[in-house]
């Protein structure tokens, strides 16, 4: 087991190395920082970003939007998901809304949001509309998957409704919510940054990417991309660690 995990890690590492070599090769071929800067120079650029005076402000603003959007989606997703999971009528009501939300192109929502909202709230709005359907759908599936036999057992032992909800339903839907949250985060960060690129709030990763692109600072565009990937990765890891702590009972 140990050997094979190491083996897979090695293969993954090799993929990253190959990607970097490919990048280096293309950079040598184009030989222009306006088209594709060299990977080592981009890495240096990324590191210097950390030292910039407004770095924390920029990353902080994007993170705040992401977290805010995520929390709102989580709240609405879970509450509406539970109601839809329990009531077939409400499920029939919310189903088409979820389908529409999931299949609408993100860019269409952004274009409309640009008309309706101010620059700083557009990305949050986008985040909510893209993340909410994932969490809601998964919560519905979670409620549906609750083992009726366990509920019956709890009922026979005269467990109160509150405790049945807390100790039977909640733990059962938890893995579903977490996996929904994980997919939502993956999509959410991308949507927020697109939103920032187009709405140009004062601070935001998308904002600086857009201005870097305007001035053909390709290294800065890629460097900020790396920061965005790191941000997404950090949150993915946070969710994974929460999952490990909550679902220890799975073998």
């Amino acid at each position, binding site marked *: 087991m140990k050997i094979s995990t190491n083996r897979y890690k090695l293969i993954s590492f090799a993929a990253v190395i190959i990607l970097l070599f490919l990048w280096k090769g293309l950079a040598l071929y184009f030989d222009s920082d306006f088209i594709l800067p060299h990977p080592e120079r981009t890495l240096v650029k990324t590191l210097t970003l950390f030292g910039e005076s407004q770095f924390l402000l920029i990353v902080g603003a994007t993170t705040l939007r992401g977290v805010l959007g995520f929390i709102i989606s989580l709240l609405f997703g879970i509450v509406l998901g539970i109601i839809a999971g329990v009531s077939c009528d409400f499920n029939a009501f919310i189903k088409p809304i979820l389908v529409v939300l999931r299949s609408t192109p993100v860019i269409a929502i952004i274009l409309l949001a640009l008309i309706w909202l101010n620059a700083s709230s557009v990305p949050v709005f986008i985040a909510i509309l893209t993340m909410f359907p994932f969490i809601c759908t998964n919560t519905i599936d979670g409620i549906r998957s609750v083992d009726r*036999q*366990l509920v*019956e*057992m*709890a*009922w*026979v*032992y*005269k*467990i109160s409704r509150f*405790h049945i909800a807390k*100790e*039977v339903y909640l*733990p*059962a839907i938890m893995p579903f919510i977490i996996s929904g949250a994980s997919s939502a985060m993956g999509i959410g960060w991308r949507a927020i940054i697109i939103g920032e690129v187009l709405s140009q709030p004062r601070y935001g990763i998308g904002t600086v990417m857009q201005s870097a692109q305007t001035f053909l600072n390709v290294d800065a565009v890629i460097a900020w991309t790396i920061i965005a990937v790191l941000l997404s990765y950090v949150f993915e890891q946070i969710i994974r660690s929460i999952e490990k702590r909550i*679902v*220890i*009972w*799975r*073998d």
Partner: protein
Amino acid sequence: MGLQINNLYKSYNDLLLFSNFSIDFSEGNITCILGPSGGGKTTLLNIIAGIVEPDSGSMEGFNSKVLSYIFQDPRLLPWKTVRGNIEFVLPHSQPYSKRETVTNSLIKLVELDGFVDYYPSQLSGGMRQRVSIARAFAYPSDLILMDEPLKGLDVKLKMSLLRSFIKIWQGDRRTVIFVTHDVDEALMLGDNIIVLGNLPIEIKEKVSINIEKHKRNIGSDYFQNFRDELHNALNH
């Protein structure tokens, strides 16, 4: 006195399970209900437990009874440990120290001392059913319903679980209604054994055994007579 079901009617779709069926159970005893698999025995238990509504009929003595149920599947919460699963059913009106004492003593009785912090997925099928038995006895009930809890376990495991069950019951003689299709299980446990026939269900045979359960040798000639009698009733 006693627990009675009178003039019970129950059908599912067009299938008539009970038609003017009456049965009574004596308290403080184990009554085994023997019958063919899938013959409405579980429905009878579910009617007693209040999970299934009868079409008509009256029940006497059950209202005032608190009951535990040992299901065919252990029905443990996968996210709770052995201890957590037993504590789950204990009334919150009891102080925690009391709940803890009760849980500990039952874990000991079902011989799972070393496994208190294990999750169900880490236990064998027999061990899970032990937890389910411990849960039923930990719960302050007057009546324990058992629906073929040993089905699917191998003979050795069955015997060891039955012996554990008898040991716990000797120290805590609650009324038990035990449903099974296995004659030997009934011979080991039953004070009264009731054989049910095919649909609509009727009582075909009733026997009483007045030997303490831990002293029974079901391989003896004495029990062979009962065994023949019960098999006869089951097959006709």
